[in-house]
């Protein structure tokens, strides 16, 4: 009988195998259950007020949008304040740049990366004027080219 499987051994193997498979399947379903995401209803579009609260050459942090809204020679723009490294909010540094207080990533005034640990520049966000409401809006989900400006 050496090397051969008898009925008892076979049935034991089948039982152990199916129990293991059932347990693994159950664990897999628990992981799926915990990874389930309810449909997202939160909007990424945030009103940031009327244009005249941003005078020329200003850069203001708007908490609701988690972004800096600025106004320079060419027009209005919005820079995402969320650090591309691990999500802290960047602060204004000297000479118009930005510094992340969590891990010291540095960006210049145009949001370009100066020093690590971040590997991406700060994002510029789509900013537009809703003429009916007379309000500026920022869409956090829509990054744009840094050179984009909303004409005053």
């Amino acid at each position, binding site marked *: 009988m050496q090397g051969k499987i008898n009925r008892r051994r076979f049935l034991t193997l089948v039982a152990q195998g199916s129990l293991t498979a059932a347990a693994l399947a159950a664990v897999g379903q628990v*992981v799926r259950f*915990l*990874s389930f*995401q*309810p449909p*997202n209803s*939160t909007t990424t579009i945030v009103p940031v007020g009327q244009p005249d609260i941003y005078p020329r050459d200003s850069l203001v*942090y708007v*908490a*609701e949008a*988690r972004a800096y809204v600025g106004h320079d020679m060419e027009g209005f723009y919005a820079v995402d*304040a969320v650090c591309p*490294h*691990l*999500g*802290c*909010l960047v*602060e204004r540094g000297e000479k118009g740049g930005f510094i992340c*207080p*969590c*891990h*010291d990533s540095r960006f210049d005034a145009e949001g370009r990366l100066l020093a690590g*640990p971040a*590997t991406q520049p700060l994002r510029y966000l789509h900013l537009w004027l809703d003429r009916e409401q007379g309000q500026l809006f920022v869409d956090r989900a829509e990054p744009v080219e840094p050179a984009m400006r909303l004409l005053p």
Partner: protein
Amino acid sequence: MTHRRPNFYYHLHPPTIPAREARFSYTFGLGGISLLLFLALGITGVIEMFVYVPTPEGAHQSIRQITYLAPFGWLLRNVHFWAGQLMVGTVILHMARVVLSGGYKARRLNWLIGVMLLFLTFLLDFSGYVLRWDQDTAWALMVGTNLVKSVPGVGSALYRFVVGGEAIGAAALLRFYTWHILGLALLAVVFVVWHIFRVRRDGGISHIEPALRVGREQFVHTELIAMLLTLGGLVGLSLFADAPLGPPADPTALVAMPKAPWFFLWIQELLRFGSTFVAGVLTPLLILLVVAILPYTLDRSDAGIALWFNRPGRFLQIVFLVIALGVTVLTLRGTLR
């Protein structure tokens, strides 16, 4: 002396105990103190559960209720806080004692269980920290969960698993609450019981054979004194030092100095230097793995058991101390920043 029936507490110990190793000056009672703190955390934690509300709107308000309104709530919260902080320390010191006195020898499985308990202690402390839901913990949670996202391949799936959505919100708080009070705590209970069971199975505290053994009565006596002193220290600390509570978490507010909880400051320092995944996830996990396999690689002999700074384990002791020194230096750097 008249013979008394030993009570349940005596039965947790073997009838006789190696005399030399049972002395306080050998173990410093660190394992027992950790266990006591763990029990104190369980009891105070369950009482807090009757008031704490795990929602973004309710969390901070219910903690204020515990701290400022409920009778002795401040003491309850302080004891829970300080027991949690102290436990990180006593567990690490317990580990250092086991390394330096060769306590892992001839019982390496229990070393692995202990490393698992260290890991669980960190997770429990971090998840508890998040439940505070104030400005400090909001950033720690933001950084911690984004670190999860940085894992190559499975990062975003893992993130959804941890956070319960695309961004931090009510689902994340509820998840951390459930992990803290049930998932992790239950796992920790299982491993604590297994850890202690293994100690008894392996013949009590690691010792030199043949050992002069003494009855457990003397040992239980010492244990009770150590227990009372620890409890006294814990309550004393809680009377005079309050657990911190900042303004409610606001993910849109600029914060001057976001800091990791003190036991993760070394990871925050690492993150300033290296790439996100390597510095924030891989390095800490590798360090834990290296520590876990130390007794299987650098010192496989059982000679020198229960001897402080024993020669066969010298190399392992040095490696452990170097790791400990590195983590300590980084932590200090983060503290002084």
